[in-house]
């Protein structure tokens, strides 16, 4: 037995585990850690892919703060986040509550609402471009039944963001609903029974039992939603691929502008500064929510 048996055992355990972790570890270092560090370095340089990066200090960050287009992209991203997350959570929770009852055709409705969540985003965006066509689209036709005059949707700067949100919500509510349904299944039936005996109304039961018990699941949906909208890209890119951010930058989101800077303008240093800001924001959001969630979970008496 060696002088430090604990160390020897630890080394043996590590040596046994390493082969199982090797592929993941190589990927983590080569494709995640190194890129994140590179992005940090480039964010302090002038870099156009053709010449070696030149150190410029905090110039890129100063330019970002002074760049009105950057703030437009931040504003547009905040707009869809602040509307999209609550809308997704409310509709997702609403449909889950309806499906959590003993209703006819439950499996059918669950599948119908979930189905759009697995449709490829590009295909979803394309069919919606056609639905939202101002002249021949389905939506304006449906609205005309209710005497609503045709809307410009994706071509109208004041409607374009909401139109894109409609597309994204259609494709994401199914997933939110499934998570809520799973959460609802874990609420103990006895709590409702006890509340019924106490004569609690439906709203009181929802407010004092369902909602607190759903706390962790609710927070999961909010965190995933916020992080999704912060990096929202796919549908917006497909819809405006000929003129990114159109009409008049009303759908220029954060990552669309990042993409433009990197691959259209070849301003890699500037794009790297944006990427690093996105990284820090995501990190902050995650840490903040998890700290908050721990308190909430404690409140609900779980864990």
């Amino acid at each position: 037995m060696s002088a430090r048996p604990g160390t020897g055992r630890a080394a043996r355990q590590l040596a046994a585990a390493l082969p199982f972790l090797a592929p993941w570890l190589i990927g983590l270092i080569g494709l995640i850690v190194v890129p994140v560090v590179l992005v940090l370095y480039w964010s302090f340089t002038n870099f156009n892919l053709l010449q070696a990066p030149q150190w410029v200090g905090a110039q890129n960050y100063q330019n970002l703060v002074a760049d009105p287009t950057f703030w437009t992209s931040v504003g547009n991203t905040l707009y869809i986040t602040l509307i999209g997350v609550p809308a997704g959570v409310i509709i997702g929770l609403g449909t889950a509550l309806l499906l959590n009852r003993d209703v006819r055709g439950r499996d059918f409705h669950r599948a119908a609402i979930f189905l759009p969540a697995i449709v490829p985003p590009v295909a979803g965006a394309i069919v919606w471009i056609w639905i939202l066509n101002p002249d021949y689209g389905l939506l304006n036709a449906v609205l005309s039944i209710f005497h609503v005059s045709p809307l410009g949707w994706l071509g109208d700067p004041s409607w374009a963001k909401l139109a894109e949100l409609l597309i994204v919500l259609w494709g994401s509510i199914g997933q939110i609903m499934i998570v809520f349904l799973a959460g609802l299944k874990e609420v103990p039936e006895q709590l409702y029974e006890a509340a019924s005996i106490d004569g609690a109304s439906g709203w009181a039961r929802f407010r004092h039992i369902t909602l607190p018990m759903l706390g962790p699941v609710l927070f999961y949906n909010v965190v995933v939603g916020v992080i999704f909208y912060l990096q929202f890209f796919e549908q917006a890119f497909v819809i405006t691929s000929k003129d990114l951010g159109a009409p008049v930058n009303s759908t220029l989101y954060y990552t669309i502008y990042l993409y433009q800077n990197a691959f259209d303008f070849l301003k890699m240093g500037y794009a790297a500064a944006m990427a690093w800001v996105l990284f820090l924001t995501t990190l902050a959001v995650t840490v903040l929510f998890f700290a908050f969630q721990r308190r909430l979970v404690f409140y609900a008496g779980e864990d």
Partner: protein
Amino acid sequence: MAAPARSMAGTPGARRRQAGRWGRRGLVQVTLIVTSVIFLLPLVWMVSSSLKGNADIFVFPPVLFPAQPQTGNYAQALSYIPFGTYFRNSAIVSAATVVGTLVACVPAAYAFSILRWPGRDLVFRLVLATIMLPFPVVMVPQYLIFRNLGWLGTLLPLMVPPFLGAFITPYFASSLAIFLLRQFMLGLPRDLIDAGRIDGAGNWRLLWHVVVPLSKGSIVTVVLFAFLTSWTAFVAPLIFITKGDLYTLSLGLQQYQSLHFTAFNYLMAASVVFCLPVLVAFVLAQRYFVQGISLTGTKG
């Protein structure tokens, strides 16, 4: 909340409440039907438009069921763009993603659940942290890394990262696969694994002959998500695929959209074929999709 007990069968109040219950039941039913129609209508519209002739497509108000379905649109749409090539590229990338995810994530999950080693749970937190990593943060450096490796102009930038547990998308990532598999393996009966150890099985044999067969359900879930995500992926192909004949379906369709903006019937036909593999997977394995999403949401 100490209201008096007020349920007395046969009283007028009880009868009124009974009627109210039926009314509410009807309301729930109607709301659900309307919601389902709203969610399904775009897909019905996709199929309906794909069967319309050039004359029927630009009609207002639009017709949901074309009088003479043009099934020939499908042959037209698929020859309009190199659909076969794009389909093959998507299939190659998806197959590599599924295999790669299993090769990298099953052993990693084993190391994070069955094996014991110092710092295990701390390192696992790192896995959890990377689930939230946005792809746009690392896409520029990865682009340059792949360029230096001479991989641009091939499908390798899409095929290799899953083998290294570095498949990143907004919906599903390698880290999420490791998480799902680990949660499942943690719940496996310890006696079975200990029995395997007493029989003298090494870790690889234990993984392959005991843990993998017991984890079939979670492995199927991971396979489905890896397939679904790589089949529908758009951002990584957009950044890393530089040659037209290597386009995946997402890229091809997107380009078709901008080139032939007016040929909506062909575009819809191509979209239907694009969605088909995913829909088939969903119909065959709905249970696993639901399980996977539920688990990430409630155990996260």
